[in-house]
């Protein structure tokens, strides 16, 4: 029965290739499937491979797997898109918990003959697994809004000390194993607590990064457990997740330009909470998310304003239009009569970028089409999309016809700051919850949107 090793090898390769494919949009789905296959085969082998002092207990195993599978499926089906990160976080927590439960059991199997290496590995698995477990739970709580942010100057020092404590304990326990039978349990508890105190101070905004970090930890825990059982798939799979998880974490930090240090030593969430603080409650978005939204939309309406002229973004706009159209999205331009600074300002620019006249929709028709527009891309327009013209009799522009873009499904506003437009009045649009702000010079922003769209396949 030497086939086992072969199968293990195969499943390892499946895992690797799966992970690889997962990292490119066009192949991601297959990647996930391959990885699943890899897991499946590995698990089957683990169940059926011949083994020294095997007592079967298949009943428990099947029951366990089945139960888990059912629960997992149910949740993953009924969660809605926005809830997914929470869910991932819990799942990851469970992975950690699994590592914990096996390693604690192993810890109590040690006898005088068990090697130093083995013990160290086991306890590390216990510790890391524990952190991943409770950490993930907190992360979940935060995302679900069940746990409030809380932090104090001291917390990071406390964490440091606590970490020392854990490691100290482990070393002690490894050096003189059999002395205190309760120590493993202590180590367990300490680890679990560290998980809590580690994640708690971190701002909700940064949870995705944290989850990815914890995921990497789970991976490492799995690898350690693998070493304990001398099981190749566990080792390699675990290591793979560990390393790729680490990189991914770094990438995520980059994407929301924070440094990982600045993450781990707290000081978290500062940046992102800032904005919501000083200017009402606006939602910022990334070029990337906007790109996806548009890429998978049916109808996109571009709403050019004076800002497009200032940024000279018309050509970039045309390019984006081209990329989207070529991917089956249909793109139009809603031209407000007073957009820009002179009559026909937008016409001049869009003609220059030669956008066909047929794509230029004027106010009334546009307001008609907006209801079944999926994404409104507001390019440096402000007054002409100011809803207070419609609903705020107090407003100086009340009664002026404007583009009623709030009738569309999503609104993304491209501008450089929260500055006002020509008429110098606030624009409630920006604070509406359909609206996402994408700050920066319109031209640059649109160019990066275009790149994002292009990489997407």
């Amino acid at each position: 029965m030497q086939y086992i090793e072969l199968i293990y090898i195969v499943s390892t390769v499946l895992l690797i290739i799966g992970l690889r494919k997962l990292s490119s949009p066009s192949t991601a789905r297959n990647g996930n499937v391959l990885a699943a296959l890899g897991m499946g085969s590995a698990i089957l082998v683990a169940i059926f491979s011949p083994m020294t002092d095997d007592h079967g207990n298949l009943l428990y195993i099947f029951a366990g797997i089945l139960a888990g599978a059912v629960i997992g499926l149910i949740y993953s089906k009924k969660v809605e898109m926005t809830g997914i990160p929470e869910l991932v976080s819990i799942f990851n927590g469970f992975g950690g918990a699994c590592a914990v439960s096996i390693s604690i059991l192993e810890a109590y199997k040690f006898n005088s003959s068990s090697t130093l290496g083995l013990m160290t590995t086991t306890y590390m698995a216990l510790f890391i697994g524990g952190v991943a477990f409770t950490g993930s739970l907190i992360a979940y709580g935060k995302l679900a809004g069940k746990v409030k942010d809380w932090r104090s100057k001291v917390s990071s020092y406390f964490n440091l000390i606590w970490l020392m404590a854990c490691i100290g304990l482990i070393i002690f326990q490894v050096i003189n194993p059999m002395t205190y039978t309760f120590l493993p349990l202590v180590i367990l508890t300490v680890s679990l607590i560290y998980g809590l105190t580690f994640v708690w101070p971190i701002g909700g905004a940064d949870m995705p990064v944290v989850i990815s970090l914890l995921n990497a930890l789970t991976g490492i825990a799995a690898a350690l457990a693998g070493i304990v059982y001398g099981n190749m798939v566990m080792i390699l799979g675990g290591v793979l997740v560990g390393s790729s998880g680490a990189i991914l974490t770094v990438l995520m930090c980059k994407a929301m330009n924070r440094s990982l240090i600045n993450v781990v030593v707290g000081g978290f969430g500062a940046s992102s909470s800032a904005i919501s603080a000083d200017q009402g409650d606006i939602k910022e978005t990334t070029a990337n998310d906007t790109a996806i939204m548009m890429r998978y939309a049916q109808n996109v309406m571009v709403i050019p304003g004076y800002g497009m002229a200032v940024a000279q973004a018309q050509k970039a706009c045309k390019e984006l239009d081209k990329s989207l159209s070529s991917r089956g999205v249909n793109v139009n331009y809603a031209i407000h009569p007073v957009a820009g600074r002179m009559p026909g300002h937008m016409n001049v620019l869009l003609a220059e970028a030669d956008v066909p006249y047929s794509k230029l929709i004027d106010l009334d028709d546009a307001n008609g089409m907006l209801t079944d527009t999926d994404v409104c891309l507001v390019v440096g327009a402000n007054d002409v999309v100011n809803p207070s013209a419609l609903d705020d009799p107090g407003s100086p522009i009340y009664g002026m016809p404007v583009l009623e873009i709030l009738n569309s499904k999503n609104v993304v506003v491209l501008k450089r700051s929260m500055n006002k437009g020509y008429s110098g009045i606030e624009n409630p649009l920006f604070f509406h919850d359909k609206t996402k702000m994408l700050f920066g010079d319109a031209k640059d922003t649109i160019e990066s949107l275009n790149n994002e769209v292009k990489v997407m396949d």
Partner: protein
Amino acid sequence: MVIGVVKCTEENLVALVPQVTSKLIKDEYQIIVESDAGVASGYSNELYESAGAVIASRKEVLSKADIILTGTAIEKTDLKQITKNSLLVGKFNGRVESNMLTDLREATAQVFSLDLLPRSTIAQSMDVLSSLASLSGYKAVVTAADEFAGYFPMMTTSAGTIPPARVLVLGAGVAGLQAIATAKRLGAIVEAFDVRTAVREEVQSLGAKFIEVEGSQEDTTAGGYAVEQSETYIKKQKELIHETAVKADIVISTANIPGRKAPVLIENRTVAAMKKGSVIVDMASASGGNCELSKDSQTIDVDGVTIIGDSKLYNLMGKQASLLYSNNIYNFLKYILKDGKDNLSYDSEIISKTLLREEEKSAVSA
């Protein structure tokens, strides 16, 4: 309610074009139009009738209508015939004192002059100045191009390479910006200049070069309008403009300071130094002209340089102009008649600013 349209004796501008007439009729207004009111701008009586309006004599219109629309001028005699509390809407150049203006102030009717509209976003749709200025800006370039004995765009041909024409636009208001855009379209190299440095951005947004004079006296409170400038500044300014103008083939000047004499930007020496065959279009000629030599509504030739003085270029596009004008008027009417003709909300900027009346009157309603 009856809306009357009287012929504009002075310009090819009719206050309602047939398309808009029918819109109003849909809104349950009666429309009576003075016979031949639209002919000058290319709209025959038949068209009005088929749009549902009634053709009548000037007298009738003036006496019957509750709201009287016209272009830019109206006779004292006409005013007499208007019934007491009817409204008169036009574009009477309300910033420049004139007998007509005093007559209008004394008129029993309430007179609105749309050129007095605030330059606010909400007023845009009624802003006749914008509509007409923009039209004139476009026309200025087309006329200049037609006048000019050369290509606007650069041409590399087997009979030699022809450099692009250089166009200088003075005053980048609505008219100026439109001129810039049009000249750019035709392929000329465009430079522009304005006292309001705020305009720089707008000029550049059209791909033209903004030539700067340091030390401009901004006055942003003036609602987008320009204010008069310091001596030294004006000297520097003149020098710069002189140099640029001498290089230019076409100069289009739109510089205005509402209600005041237009600033002189092109002096005789400049004209003298300019290339033979170059063209100057002075759109400020009516208010004294940006070019010393320009004569209002005349085209003169000063040793080889053609100087067109015309502040009402839109008149050459009467048809289009009237269409825009009447759309503006339509929007204006819809705004002021919100709650019926007899209770206008005088505290609305749009109404109070455009309404012409003697001081006591204003005192009353204040």
